[in-house]
């Protein structure tokens, strides 16, 4: 598989080294994949993206797009990499069709083609009736959709989205993930920065977990999941006010985690699963309203890696001390 971006031991420091946004990040983005960048706020994800699109120069290391340092070819990167960072504040005085069409034309396509793509996007977004409205007169979610449209128009071979589904309703969120998947199937490489781990799981091929400016892990979702606690999760909803009783009655089966007022998570060994199901079915007096068996998710991976690295960090600090 071809490499699109090579992130080669990149670090970024601000304020004369006092703030370290990125520390020695090293990985490749492969052609045609959907790569998710996960991490909490302030982890250094957006800084890394800005370095990839040549808006920010690394303090150390370099980033190469198709083998050439991005800082030496910022215009070529802009030509091939469509970057959606935020709501299109710049375009708020334009009409919806103008915002899309003008962006397409600035990306290098003819007016006729830009208009056609703009109309097709508006149709997909179910926003055709807003075509002639100014962006400042439409809702925040609609503005966000136009912003996503400005990244999609012109059909760049690489798409980068920074938190694309923030503030969107479930229907629009689904639509955005569908569009991202469609573009990926047509050959586009997609890089996604997101907090929405559960939704991202449906589209990403590989995940890079970043925190404290460091790359904690990068791998295929399935491989990362194997690293996580392999015990099965039983999500249980007890009858009102009876969660303590339920916990007491199932205490010998595994480890409990309280996840809500009447909600419990029971972690059990895989081989015990069928016996537990039999036990629940055979004991209708148990105060259970609902139950479900849940496999490890990307969210579990994210929390697991974060916890593991925190332990390493504390361990290293104690050793130094």
């Amino acid at each position: 598989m071809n490499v699109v971006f090579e992130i080669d031991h990149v670090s970024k420091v601000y304020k004369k080294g006092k703030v370290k946004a990125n520390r020695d990040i090293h990985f490749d983005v492969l052609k045609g994949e959907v790569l998710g960048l996960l991490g909490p706020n302030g982890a250094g994800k957006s800084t890394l993206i800005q370095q990839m699109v040549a808006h920010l120069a690394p303090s150390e290391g370099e980033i190469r797009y198709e083998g050439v340092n991005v800082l030496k070819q910022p215009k070529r990167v802009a030509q091939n990499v469509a970057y959606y960072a935020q709501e299109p504040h710049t375009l708020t005085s334009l009409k919806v069709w103008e915002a899309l069409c003008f962006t397409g034309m600035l990306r290098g396509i003819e007016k006729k083609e830009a208009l056609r793509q703009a109309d097709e996007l508006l149709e997909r977004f179910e926003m055709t009736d807003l075509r002639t409205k100014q962006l400042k007169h439409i809702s925040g979610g609609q503005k966000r959709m136009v912003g996503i449209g400005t990244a999609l128009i012109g059909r760049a071979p690489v798409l980068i989205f920074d938190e694309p589904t923030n503030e969107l309703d479930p229907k629009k969120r689904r639509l955005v993930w569908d569009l991202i998947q469609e573009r990926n199937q047509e050959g586009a490489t997609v890089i996604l920065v997101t907090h929405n781990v559960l939704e991202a799981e449906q589209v990403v091929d590989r995940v890079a977990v970043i925190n404290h400016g460091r790359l904690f892990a990068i791998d295929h979702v399935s491989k990362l999941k194997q690293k996580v606690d392999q015990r099965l999760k039983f999500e249980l909803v007890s009858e009102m006010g009876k969660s303590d009783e339920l916990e007491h009655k199932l205490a010998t089966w595994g480890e409990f985690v309280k996840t809500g007022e009447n909600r419990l998570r029971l972690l059990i060994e895989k081989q015990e699963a069928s016996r537990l199901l039999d036990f629940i079915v055979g004991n209708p007096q148990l105060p259970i309203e609902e139950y479900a068996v849940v496999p490890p998710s990307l969210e579990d991976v994210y929390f697991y890696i974060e916890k593991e690295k925190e332990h390493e960090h504390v361990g290293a600090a104690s050793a130094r001390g």
Partner: protein
Amino acid sequence: MSMSELPLHGVNQEQALLTRGARRYMVELGILFRIQFSIIRDSWVWVILMASMFPFMTLMFMRFFMTNPTPDMIIRSITGNMLFGVIAMGMNGMAQEISWQKHQGHFTFYAALPISKFNFVLANLIRGLISNIPSVIILAIIGQLVYGVTFHYSWGLIPVLLLSIFSIVGIGVCLGFSSPNHQLTNMLSQVLMMVVTFLTPIMMDIHQLPKVLQWFSYIFPSTYAAEALQQILLTGWTTVVTRDALILSGFSVVCYLVINKSVSWRVNK
């Protein structure tokens, strides 16, 4: 063909890409200008009113204040107030507007597109130029009516007006692009507006100013713009106008080059 059937651009370069070169350049400039102009598209009446209001009031004040003004004083008062409008909106207004765009992160949008910085800066300058022309014309008409004078109109007035506005707007655009923070730019541009309007020879003869201010005046294009406008409206194109037009052209070029150098929007070191 549906959108999903279209090849990705960059993968197949035969997609409807614009031809490179001059045409692409002009289309890009046109689009960038339309984006800039959309900011004032809805409020153009207010832009003209605001650009005309301050100078109109100063013009009226001077009319009531001056007793038996000479033709020279009248012309100075009218041209001075025409330029005051350009300084208020073209320099002060543009500095604040561009600084606001910069600190709101608007440049990120442009930096993510394969466009020329030259065109982006030029689009901003043209927007400043176009939005200031109406108020200059309005002030010229009102000034003539208030003082009962008739100007000497010639074709030379057009380049003088354009160069005057362009060079003054250039300072505003320059201030906006190099703004370290929005509040500071607001304060600086307002102080500069008052200093340039009232402490340089815009509305008075340069010899009425203290020596220090006379020297200070030479660094502002408004000084040459005022002189050129007075001359051309009073007597037509003279050698003084030629000299001032050349200086204003120089100011415009220098402003443009400084802006072009100071906008590091794509690669922020």
